[in-house]
């Protein structure tokens, strides 16, 4: 079953528009959602959560339109703390205990203990990273099936990020769970994501399995016409050293032309190619 189904959604603002955005997040998957600043990641996530109203299209969560029962199954973390700065973790536990049916105070305090979060200190006295950890603990503590994370690991130090990613990997061990994760820290997505969706200027440019991106996509650096003829070129980037081609048949080219310079590509470089490169295919 798909935990998130977004079908042809459109949302128009004065200076920006989400255009015909469609994708799915299957159960048991971690789907990474990438895009440059202002691409529409947060707008898409807010549309899914019904914080903003779409002009057209359809969004389903667990196969149904969003409702209170479905929201019980969703854990949400945004890139900022939404709890009033005067509240402590203990206050947040009291509030959310009386909001979610399956709130688990023990689990919440366990996360606070593991991450060394003071439970009686007001949020304003915590660092940005600690506030984010409180938000993540709050999202996990009511035993959701779906986590929706908007830049949830930003502001965390590498060690904390590693711990949080381990929690997410543990969360996804249950095949009935899924994670939809937008992040600028593409190294996190490279570690844990199963699929990558790339949004640019309100449009989905690609939706691919991460392994397919890693195995088949690559950067071809050559002027050899024969190799270029066989390469399935998607984008072209010109720089001081010449031309670089983004291709999606790296393995084929490598087998046919072992001497060809064709390197695997990182998610970061893939984004740059799609945004800055000239479209060829």
């Amino acid at each position, binding site marked *: 079953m798909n935990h998130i189904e977004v079908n042809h959604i459109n949302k128009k603002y004065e200076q920006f528009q989400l255009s015909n955005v469609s994708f799915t997040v299957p159960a048991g998957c971690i789907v990474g959602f990438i895009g440059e600043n202002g691409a529409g990641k947060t707008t898409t996530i*807010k549309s899914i*959560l*019904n*914080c*903003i*109203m779409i002009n057209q299209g359809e969004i389903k969560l667990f196969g149904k339109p969003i409702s*209170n*029962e479905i*929201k*019980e199954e*969703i854990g*949400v973390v*945004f890139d*900022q*703390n*939404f*709890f*009033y*700065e*005067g*509240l402590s973790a203990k*206050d947040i536990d*009291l*509030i*959310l*205990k*009386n*909001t*979610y*049916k399956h709130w688990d105070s023990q689990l919440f305090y366990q996360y606070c203990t593991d991450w060394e979060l003071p439970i009686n200190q007001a949020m304003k006295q915590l660092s940005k990273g600690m506030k984010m950890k409180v938000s993540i603990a709050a999202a996990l503590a009511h035993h959701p099936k779906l986590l929706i994370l908007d830049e949830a690991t930003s502001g965390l130090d590498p060690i904390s990020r590693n711990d949080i990613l381990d929690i997410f990997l543990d969360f996804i061990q249950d095949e009935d769970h899924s994670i939809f994760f937008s992040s600028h820290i593409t190294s996190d997505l490279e570690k844990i994501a199963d699929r990558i969706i790339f949004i640019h200027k309100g449009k989905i440019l690609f939706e691919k399995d991460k392994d397919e991106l890693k195995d088949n996509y690559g950067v071809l650096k050559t002027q050899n016409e024969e190799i270029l003829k066989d390469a399935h070129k998607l984008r072209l980037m010109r720089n001081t050293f010449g031309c670089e081609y983004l291709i999606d048949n790296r393995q084929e080219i490598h087998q046919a032309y072992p001497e060809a310079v064709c390197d695997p590509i990182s998610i970061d470089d893939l984004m740059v190619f799609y945004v800055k490169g000239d479209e060829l295919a």
Partner: protein
Amino acid sequence: MKGLILKDLITLKSYGKSLLLIFALFLFLGLSSGSPLSGAMMVMPISIMAAYVTFSYDKLSNWDCYACTMPMKRSEIVIARYFVTIILSLLFFAASLLSYLFTAVIMQNFSEVYLLIPSYSVLFGLIMILISLILVLNYKFGPDKARIALILIFILPSIFTALITQSNVPMPVISESTIMLFCTIMPILGIAALLLSYLMAAKIYQHKEF
């Protein structure tokens, strides 16, 4: 909804010291004025400020965006705020009565006791009408713009009253039965205003984007 009510009440805890200070000030004013009832009645409008403060705190932390992701309807989010306002009003009503009793005992002045029920009836109705207005304005325009409206709501009637008083315009004679009728219908008007305000606020909030 219970979680949201708790959130507002816990949030206002930090505002509690300021509220106590204001309460003490009005208590002192009551004692100084020689009229226990006047001082006590000044306490009740503090509930209007407390209601407004909850919106400011929510705006500061962008709470509404997160609240929309919680398992409750938008109308429940609105009604929770109205419940908090009613709870605060009742708390300040009780505090006001207690402060009247306290100052009356201190001053040994119970001459105004017969005015308690009519005064509090009118005040309750008036407070409810003002709170109804403030809540809707906050939902429609947000706390920053609603503050301007709040100031106008308090200042304009005061200016109007001062002008009327200074102009020596003869005031109409109102019969006792009319006054009693007015005292009776004010609470009913207040509750009606609150209900209408909730319906409008719920409709406004339903279409808001965060």
